[in-house]
């Protein structure tokens, strides 16, 4: 029977299958961060259990770390305790950790691929919903809760039921100024935030194949915003080239053997999908979100919706609630939305290509006087690379702040946050109420669009600034 890529990875990891379909799945790679792990380690201690495979586990502190000068440590007491708890737990259980001052430190979903810890055909989990990012390598990667983190630490397995197969095909070529961020926003707008619930999404089509590894990560990263726990893309030469000679990639003879296996990782002709949609790349335009759910998308040329046009009562109430929170008027043009802050970074768009894309727009330009803007590289290595290329200077000269790596204002657990009613053009992944700070208003955009918004002082069309 022809199988999907997801079927293949699933079948390859079955340790046990009960009659009712409940499976015990082997986990090849476990990423750990400071926020969702302390209670899991505490659970292990309370029941006298050990970590089954410390070698298959990699830890890094990212959510709580300051993005300003770190020489004096973390000033917030609770954040400090959480980061120190991670350090102590990793020491006690023998887990490799990239500490706050290690240049390999970064957002867990940037660090994993960078180190070659992320590999095709593996099952990768992390107590973080954006684990879907790693699916870009053709791995089955998904977020789990803390009880499941504990389960993986103790058993290197996870109790799961098989999800449905959902394929999203994107074909054609993207117009100038349109990026993979716009593609995923468009997909979420189309399927809705619950459209992928109970599914694993495979992204396919010639547009997807034409994307770079990092662009693929942006798409897979936001799969969870469409409700699917995992999103994946069949690995190809671009992936193998990316992984070659990374510190944790297979070496020597193992490399050849691994590549041979990785090449088999694709959906068979005629495999059955429970759901399938098609998008044409030429029809995708630069997108923004106007509301408080990632499905609230419009193109930069469009207007904010009018609840009066909605017949469905629930939908109407929800639109009104969002508009009210966002401080927007119905039918307002996207380009008339004035912004206060710009955030470039996060596990969605904090990689070197993202920074290059924004820097290209910002070169020799100044940001609007009323805008406060910052770049937070996804990892110490991204930061180093950007500095070697002189991108930091472009950002700083245009008026951006150049920060230390971490999750930062994507979720505002550290000091980087919006004040009530402040409005931000953000390259992150969630525009939920209060996500970037209580009362803060988030518009999700691509790095180029964030740069354009910073220059104009309002949401604007990146194509205006393309050379």
């Amino acid at each position: 029977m022809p199988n999907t890529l997801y079927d293949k990875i699933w079948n390859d990891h079955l340790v046990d299958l009960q009659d009712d379909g409940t499976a015990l799945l082997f986990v090849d790679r476990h990423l750990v961060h400071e926020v969702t792990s302390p209670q899991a380690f505490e659970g292990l201690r309370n029941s006298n259990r050990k970590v089954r495979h410390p070698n298959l586990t990699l830890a890094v502190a990212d959510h709580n770390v300051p993005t300003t000068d770190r020489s004096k440590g973390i000033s917030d007491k609770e954040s400090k305790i959480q980061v120190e708890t991670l350090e102590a737990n990793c020491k006690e259980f023998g887990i490799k950790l990239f500490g706050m001052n290690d240049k390999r430190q970064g957002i867990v979903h940037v660090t994993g691929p960078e180190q070659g810890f992320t590999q095709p055909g593996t099952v990768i989990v992390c107590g973080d919903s954006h684990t879907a990012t790693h699916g870009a390598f053709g791995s089955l990667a998904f977020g789990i809760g803390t009880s499941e983190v504990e389960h993986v630490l103790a058993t290197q397995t996870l109790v799961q039921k098989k999800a449905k197969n959902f394929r999203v095909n994107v074909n054609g070529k993207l117009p100038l100024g349109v990026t993979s961020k716009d593609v995923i926003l468009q997909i979420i707008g189309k399927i809705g935030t619950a459209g992928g619930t109970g599914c694993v999404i495979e992204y396919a089509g010639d547009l997807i194949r034409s994307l770079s590894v990092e662009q693929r990560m942006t798409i897979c990263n936001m799969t969870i915003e469409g409700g699917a726990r995992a999103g994946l893309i069949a690995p190809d030469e671009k992936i193998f080239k990316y992984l070659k000679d990374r510190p944790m990639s297979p070496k020597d003879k193992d490399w050849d053997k691994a590549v041979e296996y990785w090449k088999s990782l694709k959906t068979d002709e005629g495999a059955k999908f429970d759901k399938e949609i098609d998008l044409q790349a030429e029809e995708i335009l630069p997108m923004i979100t106007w509301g408080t759910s990632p499905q609230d998308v419009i193109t930069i040329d469009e207007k904010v919706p009018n609840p009066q046009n909605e017949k469905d009562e629930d939908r109407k109430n929800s639109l009104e609630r969002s508009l009210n929170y966002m401080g927007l008027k119905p039918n307002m043009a996207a380009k008339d939305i004035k912004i206060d802050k710009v955030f470039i970074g996060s596990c969605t768009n904090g990689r070197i290509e993202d920074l290059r894309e924004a820097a290209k727009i910002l070169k020799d330009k100044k940001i609007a006087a009323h805008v406060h803007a910052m770049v937070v590289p996804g990892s110490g290595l991204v930061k180093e690379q950007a500095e070697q290329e002189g991108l930091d200077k472009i950002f700083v000269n245009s008026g951006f702040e150049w920060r230390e790596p971490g999750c930062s204002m994507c979720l505002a657990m550290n000091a980087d946050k919006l004040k009530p009613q402040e409005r931000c053009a953000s390259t992150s992944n969630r525009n939920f109420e209060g996500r970037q700070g209580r009362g803060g208003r988030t518009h999700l955009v691509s790095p180029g669009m964030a740069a354009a918004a910073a220059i104009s002082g309002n949401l604007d069309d990146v194509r205006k600034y393309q050379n």
Partner: protein
Amino acid sequence: MQKFNTLKSIPAYLPIVNIDTDMIIPKQFLKTIKRTGLGKNLFFEMRYDDQGKEIGDFILNQNPFNNSKILIAGKNFGCGSSREHAPWALLDFGITCVISSSFADIFYSNCFKNGILPIVLEEEKIKELSEYANRKEEISVDLNENKIVYGNNEIKFDVDKFKKKCLLEGLDDIALSLKKSEKIENFEKDLKNQKPWIFND
């Protein structure tokens, strides 16, 4: 884990769709290293004003809903972040059953690890049940029988058999999986042969 068997309570009705886990428990409370004590911060931003005073309009600030054990909410409940702090906060507040027409996957599975029963019902049934919240009348949930009893009516609901067993018996699923240690070891042996690069040694 606390067992879940039957439950009787006046339900609280929160008719908002796409309630995300940031709404259930905002990030500033994720800095804890404990599972307990989060109940006071449940739905923090909707529940308290800028001065930290309770907002009277919010359902869980009103008597008798401040003692509700059952929450009825709009579709796609628990979307967003995987934070298990969301079910921990619900549990600490006293809510051990959430009823919605759909749940986000990670939240749904997190509930079962914490003795909370998430129930999926059709929107129409949700509206019927919400009337009981409006009238401040009790409804009861019986997991053994897979049913909700309200007035003289009852609705059946579906729940995965294995998950049901774990809830009813309060089972520790790590202990259950460790009973399969031999199978895990065999799998690992095969893996070492077939994909030696996985183990990083």
